[in-house]
């Protein structure tokens, strides 16, 4: 496989190439199916090295990133978790969209602590679909952590 194609999702699957082949295939399939969800919102340059680098996003995913700012204080600046809330990058590999929507709206109390519900917070709920796809793209490694430049302005 070429190290870099236009689809970063594929690239990431490659960088995970250390895992067993079966797992790799599964991840690939998953990431590629996700890519159809957020692919329209991501543009990556060809021929760059490193997962998810030199990618740009549109306003849709930028809004997801902004909504994510409400999560940073607990889930870590990069969403990789902190001493009191789990990594969202990992969690998004484990839960489906329904669970995500339920948890973000209503919150829950779990083994680690309390996840607040956001249903009264317009800064999150107006953009919850954006947020979901942003985090999904992050967890697939299709886009890097931190601020990503926009291509649509």
């Amino acid at each position, binding site marked *: 496989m070429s190290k870099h194609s236009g689809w970063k999702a594929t690239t990431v699957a490659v960088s995970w190439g250390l895992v067993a082949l079966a797992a790799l295939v599964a991840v690939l399939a998953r990431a590629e199916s996700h890519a159809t969800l957020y692919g329209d919102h991501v543009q990556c340059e060809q021929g760059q090295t490193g997962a998810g680098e030199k990618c740009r996003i549109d306003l849709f995913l930028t809004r997801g990133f902004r909504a994510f700012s409400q999560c940073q*204080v607990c889930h*870590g600046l990069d969403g*990789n978790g*902190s*001493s009191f809330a789990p990594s969202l990058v990992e969690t998004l590999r484990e839960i489906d969209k329904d669970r995500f929507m339920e948890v973000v709206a209503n919150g829950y109390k779990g083994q680690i602590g309390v996840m607040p519900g956001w249903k009264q917070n317009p800064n999150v709920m107006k953009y919850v679909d954006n947020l979901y796809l942003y985090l999904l793209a992050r967890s697939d490694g299709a886009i*890097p952590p*931190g*601020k990503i430049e926009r291509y649509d302005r």
Partner: protein
Amino acid sequence: MRKSALTLAVFAGTIASGFANANQEVMKLTQDSANWAIWGGNYAGQRYSELNQINTGNAKKLQVAWTFSTGVLRGHEGGPLVFGDTLYIHTPFPNKVFSINLADQTINWKYEPKQNPDTIPVMCCDTVNRGLAYADGKIFLQQADTTLVALDSKTGKLIWSVKNGDPKKGETNTNAPIVVKDKVYTGISGGEFGVRGFVAAYNIKDGSLAWKCYSMGPDSDMCVDPNQTTAMGKPIGKDSSLKTWKGDQWKIGGGTTWGWFSYDADLNLIYYGSGNPSTWNPVVRPGDNKWSMTIMARDADSGMAKWFYQMTPHDEWDYDGINEMILADIDVKGQKRQALVHFDRNGFGYTMDRVTGELLVAEKFDPAVNWATHVDMTTGRPQVVAKYSTGQGGEDVNTKNICPAALGSKDQQPAAFSPRTGLFYVPTNHVCMDYEPFRVEYVAGQPYVGATLSMFPAGKVTGDGTNNLGNFIAWDASSGKIKWSISEPFSAWSGALATAGDIVAYGTLEGYLKVVDAKSGKELYKFKTASGIIGNVNTWEYNGKQYIGVLSGVGGWAGIGMAAGLEGDTEGLGAVGAYKALAKHTQLGGVLTVFVLPDGA
């Protein structure tokens, strides 16, 4: 063992005598260096002890005397209070308190409040608590859910409790209260929820409210006299706060008060700082946003403000001004001064005249600081660098490579002052950020952030090839210069201790308790405790032996900033990728570790 240098005796004499009219009992306790009866060791917040049994000659022989698990996993800030034969220690949420018998380390009593877990999600950055206060046979605990309680110090029984705020509006508490005379003072947290900051004084007898003074709003709310209260030597004038906000934005304007309080009995003034204005998007709140980001000096009895100094007018970076105020009588530029020294989040170390509020020194205590070139000593205003102004950059624009990051060149972790060396010992962060403000809607009780951030080691900006996230420095507050600096891989997020043994002690995020030479910074001893340290190092004497105690228990903001820049190599930082995330060094868990010298050392 408590033979102190002559200079020290003289120094202690001048400061101590003035304190005669504070709460007599607490004053006496803090004057006996066998005790650690207040968060800062003394009312001046110096975190200095005259004990010298442990000193530069023998610190290398230190050993663990005993340990105590708090049974709580969240970030453990603050430190123990110790007097007589008892040690009192607190925990993060659910805010347990233990009274421990020093003779055999048995638990005299334990207090565990029932608090609504709904409080947790409205605490922005972990459920920390910074400790207790004592006076009049009572232990004061400021719970997370804003309940301030007075416990019987002998039995742990609840004597009174009072609601200091409303978690439904995003109001919570993390600060340590302080007692002066017959009142206990506390603040409020929730700057990320549009909470309007205040300091409240409650009567220690029954918890009734004596006064409450806001950081912003109408003059009557702020306990100011437009003609008498000064800033930069001039009366602040009428409506000094209202004029600096658009419309009623001050009502949800932040300026919260979650830091430490100091007290000067001679002047009868309490000192503390106010936090960031909300939201983090500066574009929507034109003006200086007074009196956020301000050092405040208030009359301890009435709350009336004597002077204000706003360090960061119109904040654009979240540089809360809440860090501790250290009161010390030092020479400044050849003149003896009753000084107040403050290491702000914004990266400037300020030396003020604490009587008048005159600005004496304002210098960067981390050379990486770049958001301002300097502080204009006539106006007191920082000279902001346009390219690091997130307001001038504007909404939806990513302003890059600002130093320091939002967590500041230093956060709440209090510094120490040694009158023997005349130096301040400061745990610092060495982290920079990208910051993009955007528009948010305000809903009561909901977080109200309004900016996306990323953080990384300052070396990425300075280009000096370093990738450390912290330094522990010795600072000369007279000249505003760093005397020595110890590079730490992670932010130094633990309160420091200085002693007459000419040692300085602090903790690290990996969990080391480090003891260094106060003059040179040379490492004398280190021990890896159970978890990362964000607590304060305190010292006391019991049965003729000096002990050093510190809380471990990683967490807080420190645990959030940490992942930044340390995972992988995406920023092209090379060596940074070599650093493993903090999780590789340490795990959660609150433990008090107590150190002592072996017999005959």
